[in-house]
Structure formats: structure tokens, C-alpha cells
């Protein structure tokens, strides 16, 4: 991704200032908004902390540069990488090497003892110790001509050889009692050390830095396992909630169409001797989003319905006035289920067992669904309500009843359609998306969390992100 701030700076003049500016450029490249004032603050802050303490140095930078949790996460990732690369680049330039001493004694080590020590260090979470042991482990295993040359592969190979895995440990062979369980986080930390040391080794051997890659795209295809991307969906939805909350504030600020509150004006006039100097207005109530979500759970969208259900799950967490429905051939309200169950898997199960939405064939019948939906709650739809439909608009050749759908759209304030199929497939085969799209305030393809965020942006009045 090209940085919006122009090309990245070349390795500039020596000194910390240049390095810091380079680091800020790197952050900007990853989408963290680092302004000049932040950089000035960072330098001011560094005046007051000792540079010898890595933690203080990093925290001082973080406090002045990374201004949200998301920024902070990117900051952590980039901080390590940038300063590691800078140090290595400097080392190559000056021709500094840790000749020989580095792997001294590695070959003579007793593997069992090493294993025991590493286990100990991981359990205790001692950072410095883990680093040293990682080096030893590399020299013990990596130098036997087995190194694959690919860092990721080597890390896993060493981990397996050492017999390290997260969770409770199998009892030792000699029956020496149970080994303490290994925390996943700590094991990851050890793997990070291994990776770093292997990279350092590689850089030293080849005297070149590998090209720096942008951070892995956070974008993923449709999640297939229910718990896998639940967190991502929740994030997108909570963002939606925040955006909608801000939107409400904007609308309230306007004086347009406010009504004078006579009672309060009279009361206020007592202060000024009965002369109504200041008009009091009736407070404008914020528009509470009232949302109806209709979700297709038929077989044609099986892979998507897990994603959709998790969207529903997240929506229920964020909005109080939300009613959800699932449909195949008939429609059924499942608001209750979501309100009483917290666990996603339990919800999915209850919906499939109690939903009662499949009739005979198990094929979606959109026309009938609109008829039933309108019949059930037409009285409750008003211009303040938002209807969101999650479905692929594949009618299986049945009557789409677009005119009924138009009525729903007319009664509701806003109507959005999220389609789990790429736009390319719309209107092919039995998809009648075009007939419905005409009556929507917006139709979006939605099969990744990124799409969901895009939808959130549009709903909140922003511009759609480029694909």
C-alpha cells in the first residue's frame, strides 16, 4: 500500500532523530495518523526519560504517538521490527559481527538439560533467559545441517524437537511427576525470540536485510468457524455503534424545528421579573435506532449464515432496540433467543432446533417471507426504524413479490440489504437482487469483516472505502 505521505524516507543521516522520523513514516504507512505535533511531543517526552531503559523509551513514544488501542497494537508490532532492522542495518554497515562467540558450546550441550531449562524459563516467563536459551537452541539444532533456510519452518522444527506445546503437559517418561502447564502466551514469546535470533543469523550470513513487508492484511475471507472471527465481527459492530452514536449527536445540535417549552419558559422568566427573556426549548430526543434484522439461514447461504448469525449476535450486544428474525420458507422471530443466550454456539443450536422456519422443501421463499413479515409487524414499522436484510436473494424460481418488499421499504425509514455473494453473481441464475435492490436504500456485498466495516461507514454517513 503506498503511503499517503509520499515515499518512505531512505536511510537518512545517522542519529536518533532520523531514526525516529523514519519510524513515524513507517507508522503512517500502516495507517496510524502521526502528525507533526505528535512527533514534537515525542521528542519533548524523550527529554525526560532515560534512554537506557527500553520500556521507558517505548512507553514514552507510545504515549505521545499512538492515540488509540488499535494504534497501540500497530505501534507494538512496528516498534520491535523497526528498531531491530535499524540496529541490524547499522551492524551490516559497520561490519560488526558476533563472530564465533555466539554459538560457542552449543554443540556440546545436553539436549535434555537444555529442554528442561527452556521449559523452566517459559514457565517463569523470564524474557532475558528465554532469549539466551533461544540462541542456544538454535546453535544446538540449527547447525547440524538441518536448517531449512526458511525462518518460520525452522522455528516450528525447533519447537517440535524440544517437545514444547501449550496447555497441560503429558507426564514425563520417567514418571518424575507432572510438568507444569505451559502458557500459550509465554510459548509464543519464546517462538518470537527464536524467530528473531534466526533472522539475525540470516541477516548476518547474507549481509542484507530482507525487504520490509507491510503488516499482514487484517482482512479475511468469510469466517467458517463460529468462534474464529466472532471477535472481528464484534469489533466492526461496536464501531458501528460508536459511529451511530456520534451521528445522533450531530443531528441534535441543530436548532431547526425546535418547539418552545412554554412551562419552562415561564418558570425561567421568574428570574427576570416575569419577562420571558430567554426562550426554553423542548429538548430534542436523540433518535434511538430501532433495528429489524432479517437473516436468511437456508442451505444456499450455509457458509454465510454463520457469519450472519455472528453479526446478529454482535448487533444484539450493541443495540437494545433490536429485533431479529430468521427465515427460510417462513419467518420467525428470534429476538428472545439472543436476549437469553450469551454463548454463540448455544444460540446457533437453538435457532436451528426451535426456529421452525423450514417447511417442506428447505428452499428459501422470499415472496412468502415478505408477506409474513409485513403481516406480523407492519404496524410497528415507522420512519424511525431501520430494516437490514441478510440474504442472497435466490428465490428458487418462486414468486419474489417485489411489490410487497416495496411496501416494507416504504414503511421503514431505511432499508439495507447485505448480500453474501460477490456483486458479480447477483442476478445470475435464480437471484432476483435487481428487483429488490430498487427498493433498498443501499445494497452491499458482505462476505468479509472488511465489507461489514464498509457498510458501517456508509450507514454512518461516511464515504465507502475503496475496494
Amino acid at each position, binding site marked *: 500500500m503506498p503511503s499517503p505521505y509520499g515515499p518512505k524516507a531512505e536511510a537518512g543521516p545517522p542519529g536518533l532523530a532520523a531514526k525516529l522520523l523514519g519510524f513515524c513514516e513507517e507508522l503512517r504507512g500502516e495507517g496510524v495518523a502521526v502528525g507533526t505535533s505528535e512527533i514534537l*511531543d515525542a521528542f519533548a517526552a524523550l527529554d525526560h*526519560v532515560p534512554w537506557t531503559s527500553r520500556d*521507558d523509551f517505548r512507553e514514552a513514544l507510545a*504515549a505521545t504517538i499512538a492515540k488509540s488501542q488499535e494504534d497501540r497494537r500497530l505501534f507494538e508490532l512496528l516498534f520491535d521490527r523497526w528498531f531491530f532492522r535499524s540496529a541490524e542495518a547499522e551492524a551490516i554497515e559497520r561490519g560488526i559481527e558476533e563472530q564465533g562467540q555466539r554459538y560457542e558450546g552449543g554443540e556440546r550441550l545436553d539436549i535434555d538439560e537444555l529442554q528442561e531449562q527452556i521449559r523452566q524459563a517459559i514457565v517463569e516467563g523470564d524474557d532475558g533467559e528465554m532469549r539466551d536459551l533461544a540462541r542456544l537452541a538454535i546453535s544446538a539444532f540449527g547447525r547440524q545441517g538441518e536448517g531449512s533456510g526458511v525462518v518460520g519452518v525452522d522455528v516450528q522444527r525447533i519447537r517440535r524437537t524440544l517437545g514444547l506445546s501449550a496447555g497441560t503437559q503429558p507426564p514425563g517418561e520417567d514418571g518424575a511427576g507432572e510438568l507444569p502447564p505451559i502458557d500459550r502466551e509465554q510459548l509464543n514469546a519464546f517462538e518470537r525470540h527464536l524467530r528473531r535470533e534466526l533472522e539475525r543469523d540470516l541477516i548476518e550470513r547474507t549481509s542484507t536485510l530482507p525487504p520490509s513487508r507491510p503488516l499482514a492484511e487484517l482482512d479475511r475471507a468469510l469466517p467458517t468457524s463460529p468462534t474464529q472471527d466472532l471477535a472481528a465481527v464484534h469489533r466492526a459492530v461496536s464501531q458501528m455503534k460508536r459511529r451511530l452514536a*456520534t451521528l445522533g*449527536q450531530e443531528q441534535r445540535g441543530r436548532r431547526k424545528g425546535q418547539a418552545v417549552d412554554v412551562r419552562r419558559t415561564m418558570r425561567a422568566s421568574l*428570574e427576570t421579573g416575569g419577562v420571558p427573556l430567554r426562550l426554553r426549548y423542548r429538548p430534542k430526543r436523540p433518535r434511538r435506532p430501532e433495528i429489524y434484522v432479517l437473516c436468511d439461514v437456508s442451505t444456499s447461504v450455509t457458509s454465510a449464515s454463520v457469519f450472519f448469525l455472528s453479526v446478529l449476535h454482535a448487533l444484539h450486544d450493541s443495540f437494545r432496540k433490536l429485533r431479529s428474525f430468521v427465515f427460510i420458507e417462513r419467518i420467525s422471530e428470534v429476538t428472545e433467543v439472543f436476549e437469553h443466550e450469551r454463548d454463540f454456539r448455544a444460540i446457533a443450536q437453538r435457532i436451528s432446533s426451535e426456529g421452525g422456519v423450514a417447511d417442506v422443501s428447505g428452499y428459501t421463499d422470499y415472496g412468502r417471507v415478505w408477506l409474513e413479515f409485513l403481516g406480523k409487524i407492519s404496524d410497528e414499522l415507522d420512519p424511525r426504524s431501520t430494516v437490514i436484510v441478510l440474504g442472497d436473494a435466490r428465490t428458487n424460481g418462486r414468486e419474489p413479490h417485489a411489490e410487497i418488499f416495496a411496501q416494507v421499504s416504504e414503511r421503514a425509514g431505511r432499508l439495507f440489504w447485505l448480500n453474501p455473494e460477490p456483486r458479480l453473481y447477483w442476478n445470475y441464475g435464480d437471484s432476483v437482487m435487481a428487483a429488490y435492490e430498487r427498493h433498498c436504500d443501499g445494497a452491499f456485498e458482505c462476505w468479509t469483516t472488511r465489507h461489514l466495516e464498509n457498510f458501517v461507514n456508509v450507514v454512518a454517513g461516511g464515504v465507502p472505502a475503496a475496494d
Partner: protein
Amino acid sequence: MPDGSVAEVKDALAKVGYLADEPAALVSFLAQQLGKPVLVEGPAGVGKTELAKALSRASGRELIRLQCYEGLDEAKALYEWNYRKQLLRIQAGGEEGWEDVHGDIFDKEFLLERPLLQAISSAEPVVLLIDEIDKTDQEFEAMLLELLSDFQITIPELGQVAATTMPIVVLTSNNSRELTEALKRRCLYLWLDYPELEREMEIVRLHAPELPEALARRMVEVVRMVRALDLKKPPSIAESIDWARTLLLMGAEDIDRETFEQSMSIIVKHRTDIELVAERVGVKLAEPVRTEG
């Protein structure tokens, strides 16, 4: 409060009963050194507000608190003219002409100072806590900008009121909406999260010193287990402390299933949460040991 180094700030905070972690101590230290406001974000109940209170205690400064809510406006946050007094002044003037009066009634004497104005016009340096800034609307945030960057407030009738002493400003947010870039730009940022096991134990033992160490550890472990679940309202630090005190009162020696079920409502306060916690955590605890006979 000593301001020589990060470690000193940390000690000073610990002396008044707030065990800050490295980032929190460092940011508090920088806030004093750089004279910049601190924006503290994090989940509810991790001690964001408490940090400001502790800073005030440690530095011996008065704490001025502005609690934000929807619809908070300038009149309640900055200043308001005292109409009644102005009216009285006009009436008391009798035959005085408008020329004499109008300069008079827009004077400091007729100004009602609200927290923000109080904080910057105070003769002694203070700690200003702007709590739950995310509850206000964006207009209010914009109004704060002048105060936060220049420590001054413009009152049209009087001109600028600049701070005589530098307050330490702490803003807290539960992250219920995105704050504007402009506001964030002017602040140091601190993300407070639930503390590590060891730190939480220290905190609990600081507030409930009679609790035996083994029980405290067990308790914090259980609290962390509860937090790991997907709850509507995970237990805060204050609630762990409450629970510790409850366990003391109950005279519990270990947290078994029975004790847990009796006292669970201290840390879990949502019906659906209670069911989930009982189901997931309760079963992991040992059955109570019954004495024979």
C-alpha cells in the same frame, strides 16, 4: 509529589494506595514534565478515575472533578453569569444611568465559576479530572480544545482568562464513542487494562491486608477466569476488592463451590452473566469439604 524520575512518581502513587504499572507511572510523570493533559482509556473499573484521585493525593493538590453526561453545556462546565445578582445590582442602582451600570455587571463578581474555570483560576495548582468525556457531544469536546492546549478560557465580556498555575488534567473515556482527532492530538494517551495477576494480588492485599496470601491468589485467579468469559459486565478491580472483603467477613478459608455461589453476586451483576459464570467457573471449583458426622 516528587517529580525527579518515573520511579519516584511510582513510589509516591504507591504510598497513597495506588499501585501503578510502568506505563501509568511513566505517563503521569510525563504529564507533569510536559504539562500536557492525559487521556486515559480502558474498560470500566480498571482504576481510570482512581488514577486522577491518586495523583491529587500524592501531589497534595486539590481535585476538581467534572463529571460528563449527555447534554452537558458551557453553563455547567465553564461559567455562568449570575442573573439574579446582576438584576439586583441594576435595581439597587436606582437612578443610575445605563452607562454606569453595564460595565459593572459584567464583572468577576457576577461570574459563577464552574469546574473548568475554577481549575485554571485557582491560586493553588490543582488536578482537574474530566470524567467520562465520551458521554458528552462533539461540540463540548471542541470547546475543551482551547482549555487543553493553552490552559485558557475566553469569556466574551471579560476577555481571556489564562491559568495562573498549571493544573494536571486527566480525561477518562470508556470508549463508548470515538473521540475527535483534535482532542487526542492534544493529549498523552494511556490505555489501562486489567492488571496482571501479581499486580492485582498486590492491589487486593493492599486494600484487604488481613486476607491470607494463598486465598488472595486463588481469588484473583478465579476473577481472571470470570473475566476471560464473554460477559456483559466483567468484574472490575473495585469488585475484586469488595469480594476479598466479603470473603474475609464470611471467614472463608478456600474458595470452593459453595462459597463461590454464595458470594458470586459481588463480582457478577447481570442475570445472564450469573448463569454463565455458575456454569463455567462454578463447576471447576472443588466441592466443599464436609467434616464427618
